[in-house]
């Protein structure tokens, strides 16, 4: 395949950045998108120029590190996958492909396609945990039976990989899907209910501090989420938040 890549290049956070064009030839349809980027980088290095910086690690769709906005969509046109799982067979010979970083005020660009998602970590520091020590003397794991349905729902919420596609896809750069997945996971489990109120208030407060936008319920996040995290979680978080704010005062 022949392709024309239009890639966002930005030297560092203070650089203004611009789109650069790179023609590519002999792209195999079996390549993953990142392997195609590797090949391009090898070419750039052999020309003595700076390769394109992009985040990636596990390359099997679970670490959540890769983060490209491809042809106007987070993780590209395919569904239920991360950028590293996108394969070139999803494109046609002669296509022009735009590659941009995930954009949000909460995700400042570090270099080229690499962004800083530490805002997500800070939201988790605010309450993304159950306050239990690792004593080894906690009660037996089977002491509290948990309805399978709740356990499954908690699991579904917990599969979030924290990639930030929800923020990138949202027209308001809202982080509600991410935060609600975490809030839901814990609020669905008896272990997490104890401090559910404190958790949701603190996490939402931190989310707002990080400069993410509001949820307009467009549902774009759910569609682009590589793990299919459901909008139900956002509704659940709204509920939890309402309950907590009414009850805490």
């Amino acid at each position: 395949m022949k392709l024309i890549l239009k890639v966002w290049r930005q030297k560092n956070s203070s650089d203004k950045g611009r789109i650069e064009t790179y023609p590519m030839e002999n792209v195999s349809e079996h390549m993953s998108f990142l392997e195609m980027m590797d090949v391009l980088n090898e070419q750039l290095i052999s020309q003595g120029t700076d390769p394109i910086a992009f985040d990636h690690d596990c390359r099997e769709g679970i670490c959540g590190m890769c983060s490209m906005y491809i042809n106007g969509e987070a993780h590209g046109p395919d569904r239920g996958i991360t950028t590293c799982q996108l394969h070139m067979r999803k494109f046609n010979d002669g296509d022009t492909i735009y590659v941009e970083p995930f954009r949000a005020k909460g995700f400042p660009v570090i270099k080229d396609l690499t962004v800083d998602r530490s805002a997500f970590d800070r939201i988790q520091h605010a309450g993304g945990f159950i306050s239990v020590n690792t004593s080894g003397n906690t009660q037996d794991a089977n002491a509290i039976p948990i309805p399978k349905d709740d356990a499954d729902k908690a699991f579904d919420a917990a599969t979030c990989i924290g990639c930030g596609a929800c923020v990138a896809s949202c027209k308001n750069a809202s982080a509600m899907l991410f935060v609600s997945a975490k809030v839901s996971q814990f609020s669905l489990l008896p272990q997490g209910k104890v401090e559910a109120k404190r958790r949701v208030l603190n996490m939402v407060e931190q989310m707002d501090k990080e400069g993410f936008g509001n949820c307009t319920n467009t549902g774009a996040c759910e569609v682009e989420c590589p793990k299919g995290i459901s909008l139900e979680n956002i509704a659940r978080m709204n509920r939890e938040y309402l309950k907590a704010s009414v009850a805490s005062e």
Partner: protein
Amino acid sequence: MATLDSKIPAGPIKDKWTNHKNHINVVNPANKRSIDVIVVGTGLAGGSAAASLAELGYNVKAFCFQDSPRRAHSIAAQGGINAAKNYQNDGDSIYRLFYDTVKGGDYRAREANVYRLAEVSANIIDQCVAQGVPFARDYGGLLDNRSFGGVLVSRTFYAKGQTGQQLLLGAYSAMNRQIGMGKIKMYNRHEMLELVKVDGKARGIIARNMVTGEIQRHSAHAVVIASGGYGNVFYLSTNAMGSNVTAAWRIHKKGAYFANPCYTQIHPTCIPRSGDYQSKLTLMSESLRNDGRIWVPKNIEDVEAIRNGSKKPVELKEEERDYYLERRYPAFGNLVPRDVASRAAKERCDAGYGVNKTGEAVFLDFASAIMRYGSEKATVLGELNPTPERVRELGEKVIENKYGNLFQMYEKITDDNPYKTPMMIYPAVHYTMGGIWVDYNLMTTIPGCYAAGEANFSDHGANRLGASALMQGLADGYFVLPYTIGDYLANDIRTGKIPTDTPEFDEAEKSVTERLEKFVNNKGTKSVDHFHKRLGNVMWNKVGMARNEQGLKEAIAEIRQIREEFHKDVFVPGGMYEFNPELEKAARVEDFLELGELFATDALLRTESCGGHFREESRTEEGEAMRDDENFAYTAAWEWTGDPGKANLHKEELTFNEVELKQRSYK
């Protein structure tokens, strides 16, 4: 050759750990506040260690090269975590888990450590549930178990195919709590590049801020290395792209012995390579072998026809197929352990029967399972004379319920529909059992420097059983290290903060700066990946699934050659004080190039076959692996001397009092 003191406590094996905990030193809570601990790596071992140490009251500084601790490669583990809970009442016990692990490791692990691992395994599950890890449950609301990796009991806890992710997020949440309280200071996108020793003790590290390129000094009273395995020395592996040996190798070069580097696990069910551009390999859960049958064509003409597309695999009749595992191992069939299945695939492909363009793939076929499940299902539904199409349809549904996500993943990557055509699989490097040598307290041969999780060598011997890696990482981090580290730190309560403006830190920082400067100023012509791929090629072909003396000797020579060329001709674009992924890779590949030689040296020394290490010279008449307990029942711990080919060997003799050494057989 000096002997090593593994500090195994005296007494009967089942009391060793309890007695040890009762007798080691403990640091008073008030004093813990004035003690700093550095943890490098935030996977299951590092993350759980950092959180537990911070809970105890130590000041923890945690480092990871990823942009968040949650992204450590533990997250990719699929299958599950073992624990001797005996919830299923199928006769499981601490002893049985211990026994299975020692046997599975082909009798090359340290008994006392493995017993402790089995002992604390049950606590891990309690701990994780309390943290909110959503393990799979049955309709009664209790935890579900599955049987895994060919063991006879169901002791594996799981969270669909994402157990590693859920456990890591559990450890990460425990870290978050401590980060929020200021007890852990988290350094994301920081890479440890050197260990700092003061008076022979580990007292700090030199790290590089990967965003700004700033070289930083961090001091502490103890340093924990939990940086994972080194499978990426093969270039292609199921490890993450960033997984590296650097932290482990740096402490090795500062005096920590490296044990059994040649013990590598090659996992049989991975998606084959599709071309030269391949950057990594994807693992598919071992559970597929429960229902899939592995085969290649019997006739070489059919192989050719399949490769060039003139014949489809489904067109081959039963008698034209060679179900080689069922043929060679009638008792275990397709369920032989990982190492055996991997070698058998290689044997067929080396003989020319590989079924894809690269010649490195075999079929994993679900057709008969689909038909079997389909007719069972039809019976259940009361359909007496279903058509074959109907049986197939029903069977595909059953298979979809069991493996749907794996089949989908396969289809996304290969564009083949595994319900209709057999999957293609090939073995890939997956886990490294070898690692930094540690004593019973998980301390390396450098006082104050500890190694945990896959980074150490301790519990899996020569071959790791499925669902045991997660168990070991969390056991080390939650339940072993927090106790044993206190024994050492009790002597440090009056030390006070370790200053970083000392000659030792100056020296270490200078060496790091010079090393990196050399890379960016080396105006070579070839990229880092070029050398990494060449190294990987040598490792895979000569130090891979089957090894022999000649190949290993060649490998050592070739690796030295590549290393020389690398130093002369590597080109690293960009500068030192900026975000520069190529520079990061260069430093890691330099370490891999040294490790690779030690790896091959270790493999050359061990002329027996054991677990994941197969020496062609040491096999039975039928071609199966043959252990040599008389000469090799020891751990080979290598001491750095300045040249990886001339490392000093130290032996830790392995004694087995609780289990009887047996030759494994799967016939």
